[in-house]
């Protein structure tokens, strides 16, 4: 699969809004339902937010690269950053059962949302030492004619 687009942007929170708009337009072009588009825009926004907050610790000058590719079966986004590498098991940290106001915590919500918004989420460190998060969504069966 070739990339449909690759953009590079600074890790500044004010850039999240235009990135969301770009992703929404791209997903509309790919004919996903509005509900799925809303989920994926939110999921991708959470991934970018994680880069800003955890990889770059809030620094606004970090570099984030977002690529998108659309195959016949899968849509794939890849997000790269050069910040702090997350713990190896960070994608497995999702335990939030029986939440009550008493045990409620304001942190860790982004990862839960991200994992529910996409069908597959994986992480690797590439040869350049960059953090790479891959978000995949299965497309509906495509009928010819």
């Amino acid at each position, binding site marked *: 699969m070739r990339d449909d687009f690759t953009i590079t942007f600074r890790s500044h929170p004010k850039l999240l809004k235009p990135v969301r708009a770009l992703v929404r337009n791209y997903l509309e072009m790919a004919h996903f339902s509005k509900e799925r588009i809303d989920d994926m825009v*939110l999921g991708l926004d959470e991934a970018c937010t994680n880069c800003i907050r955890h990889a770059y610790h809030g620094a606004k000058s970090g570099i984030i690269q977002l690529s998108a590719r659309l195959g016949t079966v899968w849509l794939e986004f890849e997000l790269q950053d050069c910040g702090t590498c997350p713990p190896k098991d960070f994608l497995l940290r999702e335990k939030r059962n029986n939440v009550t106001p008493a045990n409620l915590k304001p942190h860790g919500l982004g990862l839960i949302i991200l994992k529910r918004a996409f069908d597959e989420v994986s992480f690797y460190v590439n040869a350049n030492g960059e953090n790479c998060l891959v978000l995949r969504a299965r497309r509906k069966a495509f009928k010819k004619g």
Partner: protein
Amino acid sequence: MSIDIQIIEKNGNYKIQVSGQVDLYTSPDLRKAILGSVDKSKDTIIIQLSQVEYMDSSGVATLVEGLRSATKQKKSFKLLSPSHAVRKVLNLSRLETVFAITESNEE
């Protein structure tokens, strides 16, 4: 800015009307408004969310902080008419049952 926050005080209680997009960029302003209102409020804080076009986890975390602070101070914290975008993010973060949600503007 892509957020508008209005704070309305009535008989010592506070209602915060939020419109626009709540994300990592704008949620600090909402946090300040909510936590300040929780502290000043006599016993009830209502967050009106019907005009919120978009909310991410930083917005939810802000609501969680407000709820925790209100609970600690034995005050009531309610979400009024959350928009579809707000309900979606609450649902995805599995927190839809944690907040008191009302559709009535009576209070």
